[in-house]
């Protein structure tokens, strides 16, 4: 490691992908029951290199290239978890997790409940998700809605390097199944990470990434940088926007979100997934239920359109950007405020 990328006190700049890699490594070193399964996660280190070096360090039994069959991978991992291991599955891309949907919905999410608590299922499913990397069809889906709508799963998604490390450690340590969504477009984003990162709060705690009094942007994962940029740009228009990073979609942090929205009276939810019946629908609905009389305007949503993910040359039109966020903010009925 060069001094150039290393800050004070052992804190180096690392990419989000590398932070995930370290979280896996540290989890495997700490707990011999952690086993990784997936396609191309061994010698290749995963197509995004998140598992780089782990097969070499821990052996192929701990970091296993499986046959190419997602239902088989998740199903086998389920059986391993039933025996007391803590499998971590990598799905190569969002859309390639769909063949495993049956296993996820009918078994993984329900095993604890089916057995009245006798058989918990500590299993993490890592899924790179979202667009913005120029991927051809089936490589850029935002599939979080499906997982949010499946009771029994935790749905977690980091937006920063520190959260990537910390939330993945928590996911692996969780006694419940976690769908861990990794924002593809942020894999290469770099931030400092200490050698021994501090714990992140438990699941269900959103974090206020920016305090602001005019209105609240509610977002997660790949859309956090967009919201922060929008908040920065909004200062020119005299708006002081707050930004909440949800970090876990399930469980949902009603407390933090509602406290902020009650304070500002205005909110916009921002995500890449299609708007219709998407995450923003739940967020808008529950915030409205809880904060109705504090709202000066309806909670608005800036999301991907209700279309199959578009081809690379059109994706910038589909993805929420600063302009569309600011336009939504402008529609928050300021004249009535």
């Amino acid at each position, binding site marked *: 490691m060069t001094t150039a990328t290393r800050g004070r006190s052992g804190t180096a700049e690392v990419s989000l992908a590398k932070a995930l890699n370290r979280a896996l490594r540290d989890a495997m070193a700490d707990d011999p029951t952690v086993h990784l399964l997936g396609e191309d996660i061994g010698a290749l280190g995963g197509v995004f290199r998140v598992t780089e070096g782990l097969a070499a360090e821990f052996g192929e039994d701990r970091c296993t290239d499986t046959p190419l069959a997602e239902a088989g991978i998740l199903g*086998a991992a389920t059986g391993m978890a039933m025996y007391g291991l803590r499998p971590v599955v990598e799905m190569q891309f969002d859309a390639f997790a769909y063949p495993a949907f049956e296993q996820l919905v009918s078994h993984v999410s329900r095993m604890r409940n089916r057995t009245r608590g006798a058989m918990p299922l500590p299993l993490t499913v890592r899924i790179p998700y979202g667009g913005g990397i120029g991927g051809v069809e089936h490589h850029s889906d935002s599939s979080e809605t499906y997982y949010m709508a499946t009771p029994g799963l935790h749905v977690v998604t980091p937006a920063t390097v520190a959260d990537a490390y910390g939330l993945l450690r928590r996911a692996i340590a969780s006694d419940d199944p976690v769908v861990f969504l990794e924002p593809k477009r942020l894999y290469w984003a770099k931030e400092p990470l200490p050698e021994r990162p501090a714990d992140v709060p438990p699941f269900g705690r959103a974090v206020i990434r920016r305090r602001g009094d005019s209105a609240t942007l509610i977002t997660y994962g790949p859309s956090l940088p967009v919201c922060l940029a929008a908040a920065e740009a909004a200062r020119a228009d005299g708006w002081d926007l707050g930004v909440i990073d949800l970090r876990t979609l399930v469980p949902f942090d009603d407390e933090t979100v509602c406290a902020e929205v009650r304070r500002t009276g205005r909110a916009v939810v921002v995500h890449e997934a299609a708007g219709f019946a998407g995450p923003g629908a739940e967020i808008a609905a529950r915030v409205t239920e809880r904060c109705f009389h504090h709202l000066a305007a309806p909670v608005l949503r800036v999301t991907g359109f209700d279309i199959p993910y578009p081809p690379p040359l059109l994706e910038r039109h589909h993805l929420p950007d600063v302009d569309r966020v600011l336009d939504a903010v402008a529609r928050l009925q300021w004249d009535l405020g």
Partner: protein
Amino acid sequence: MTVSELPAHPLSRTAVPPPPDPEPYRVLGTGRPDPELWPLLYRELVRGRRYNTQATALTRQGRLAVYPSSTGQEACQVAAGLALGPRDWLFPSYRDTLAAVVRGLDPAVALTLLRGDWHTGHDPRVHRVAPLCTPLATQLPHAVGLAHAARLRRDDLAVLALVGDGGTSEGDFHEALNFAAVWRAPVVFLVQNNGYAISVPLAKQTAAPSIAHKAVGYGMPGRLVDGNDAPAVHDALTGALARARAGEGPTLIEAVTYRLDAHTNADDATRYRTEAEVAAWRARDPLTLMERELRAHGLLDDAGAAEAHEAAERTAAALREALSGDPELTPDDLFTHVYAEPTSQLREQAERLREFS
């Protein structure tokens, strides 16, 4: 030129072996009697049959929501339950309550799901019996994963996974067998080929010469066995489980049998099969075959038969008794086991529901 005569190729891993040799299609009367095992099999067959008829009767009395009977398939059920060692695991499908009971589950507890009570009544880890599995073939990858995990931990055990002929068409069947073979997992797949998936006959399910042939494509042995011949099924399973425990990998066993009852108490089997067909199979009733064979070898007399039937009656009576009351369930149970700790959302919902109860 057949596969085995092909010249070596840069990519070929080894010389190509011939397709595996299926088990002889043994029929009762061709094997040597085992004076320990056979009477035990017989008693469990009798008890199993009684269990099936009792459970079906309980559906008529509204004590069970539904019961998929294994009447006619008791040889498979009993052999599956008895072939397992104490450390082994059983992965039953929705029809295999009886196998779970023979393996040691309490007869009433095994019916928890079908009673409308909680989804699973037993602790899978205590009994080494996975939950009865409704979505077909989906438990097969679990069986493989568990077997693989045991092998990684160097635990000396094998896993038996049950599936029907219909279930072999599912993608999960394919993926499970493939993983098992690649990993050499200590797992045995027993297909109870009863000729039908609800109403769909085998000929619409597969064009393979036999289901055992499917083993070829995974590079594991395939065995074909008379599924109404309890000692034959037991033998095939015991051998395959021993092979699995010895680290020699998985086996696929097809047991040809027949479901004499309808698919469930709610099904009308006359819509899709003839009385003549059922009669032909009734003539091959696994209980009759076993009893005839035991008597022929002098291993059973009238007293022994009566004793077996009395024991079966005791099981039935206990079952009636156990299911005479209503299960204890409270609405709070809805929220308790979704996660290790209920989320704040679930706590709110539980509270709201309490206001209504």
